């Protein structure tokens, strides 16, 4: 199994609902929680998040486009964060999910240095590294209705820009979607084989426009033509 996400950069509106849903679920999770906040109502609010959305402008105005890029753990096939971990706290499961065993972590930050995506954040209160679990305590929970056995971020997305599934199955929804839309892995040149796939924005269909040249009418001409029409009547 190779569980991961497809994230559609074409339909993502950058609303941060996925990040908030992630924070809510994992804060209460026994696997990863709690997710601390530091100075949440003060002047310098900060805290641990597994999913962060950044907003970019591509090109120069007016020929520009805003792209919202949510980023969380890519659950790499060759996860450097796992191999560099000196204590064995970081590990990769057979279903592809990369997790941190808090009971083994010594909080040395080394795995966060090895991750190119900024997917790992230190919990200053617990002294251990934390990261996206792909909601491992949701997706395999058979007490939940099958439609809800998905990561919280996927369920929360209002534009369905996030899909969850098994990339090992070539006919799964994520595999089909990633294939059909030229999904790419971020910073793939580093060789860590990220599993998550990002779908680039599509070219919007051309809007039909009139081929007649527009006439530039000034205020005076408008008044004259208005007067002519009124008189003509």
């Amino acid at each position, binding site marked *: 199994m190779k569980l991961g996400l497809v994230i559609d*950069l074409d339909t993502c509106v950058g609303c*941060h609902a996925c990040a908030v849903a992630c924070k809510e679920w994992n804060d209460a999770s026994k696997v990863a929680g709690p997710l601390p906040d530091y100075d949440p109502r003060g*002047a*310098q*609010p*900060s805290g*641990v*998040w597994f999913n*962060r*959305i*950044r*907003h*970019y*402008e*591509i*090109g*120069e105005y007016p*020929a*520009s486009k*805003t*792209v919202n*890029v949510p*980023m969380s753990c890519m659950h790499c096939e060759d996860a*450097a964060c796992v*191999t*560099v*971990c*000196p*204590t*064995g*706290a970081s590990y990769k499961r057979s279903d592809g999910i990369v997790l941190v065993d808090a*009971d*083994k*972590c*010594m*909080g*040395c*930050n*080394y795995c*966060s*240095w*090895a*991750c*190119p*995506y*900024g997917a790992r*954040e*230190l919990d*200053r209160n*617990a*002294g*251990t590294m934390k990261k996206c679990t792909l909601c491992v305590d949701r997706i395999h929970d058979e007490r939940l209705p099958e439609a809800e056995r998905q990561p919280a971020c996927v369920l929360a997305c209002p534009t369905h820009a996030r899909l969850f599934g098994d990339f090992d199955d070539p006919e799964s929804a994520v595999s089909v979607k990633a294939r059909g839309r030229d999904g*790419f892995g*971020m*910073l793939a*040149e*580093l*060789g860590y084989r990220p599993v998550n796939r*990002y779908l*680039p924005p599509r070219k919007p269909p051309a809007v039909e426009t009139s081929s007649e040249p527009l006439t530039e009418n000034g205020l005076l001409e408008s008044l004259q033509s208005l007067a002519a029409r009124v008189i003509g009547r």
Partner: protein
Amino acid sequence: MRPALSVIFFTVLSGAGLGLFALLALAQAAGSPAGLEPAMHFAGGTLAVALVAAGLISSTFHLANPRNAWRAATQFRYSWLSREAVLALLFFPIALAYLAAVRLHLPFALQTTLGLTGTALAWAILLCTGMIYACLKTIPRWHTPLVPAAYIVNGHLSGSLILLALAAADRKPTGAYVALVLIALAAAGAIKWLYFRRFGPPRVGAHSLSSAIGMTAAQAKLLDAGHTHGTFLTHEFVFRLGRDRALQLRALFFALSLLLPAVVVALDVRSAWVLASIALLCLVGLLIERWLFFAEAQHVVRLFHGQQAV
């Protein structure tokens, strides 16, 4: 990268200790006619082990959860950090046995066997320390063999200066020790010069923001990072150092760690106090160099925070 002070002190102090230990043991095994008297040899070895121990203790201060530090010995097969920890744990019994053998005047063969085993471990530890940084593809400025080379050579540079001071205090001919210092100075200067030369405008094949987010048709720029104040990521990876300040600190490192010892050695100064002060100033210079090593390193996560290329 945010300079982690405890790691900086650790690598500079234990580097000096490991370099000093290796050079002491090698000088003894080579049977140099200028070899130190046993009492001074023992004092030097004790200083070396103390420096390594001080460094290792310092390194634990940057752990957020030091209770699990013992587990760092478990991943020897995969992690350079774990290798460093295991070899450091092996180094102490060997080094202490060596010191005991020197102190108790045990047979010379036993002393040199222990000394050379300790030397091999010291070299392996220095290599591991360098590889901890050099193996990270996410920090291109560190991803070069120059990094472990610098860790090994800088350890021997500071070690050789301490050894020279010890030899002067022992009123021994210092020629062989001066030669060691000069070799270390030349190697350290060359490695660091090559290392700094790699920084410049982004090279071909560097990682860019546009390619990282897959938007290669036009240049991308950050509109909003999604948080109002700093995060763990900006705190740890988005350390900013002005170009002028960086150049000043580089100059200070070259002056303290390379130029000053070269001048003093060239003037054939024999005073142990002067040489000890020079060794201390060299360590200060190496602390600056190690601070710069972090401050100037750029992690690829800076791309997502708006930097155009890393």
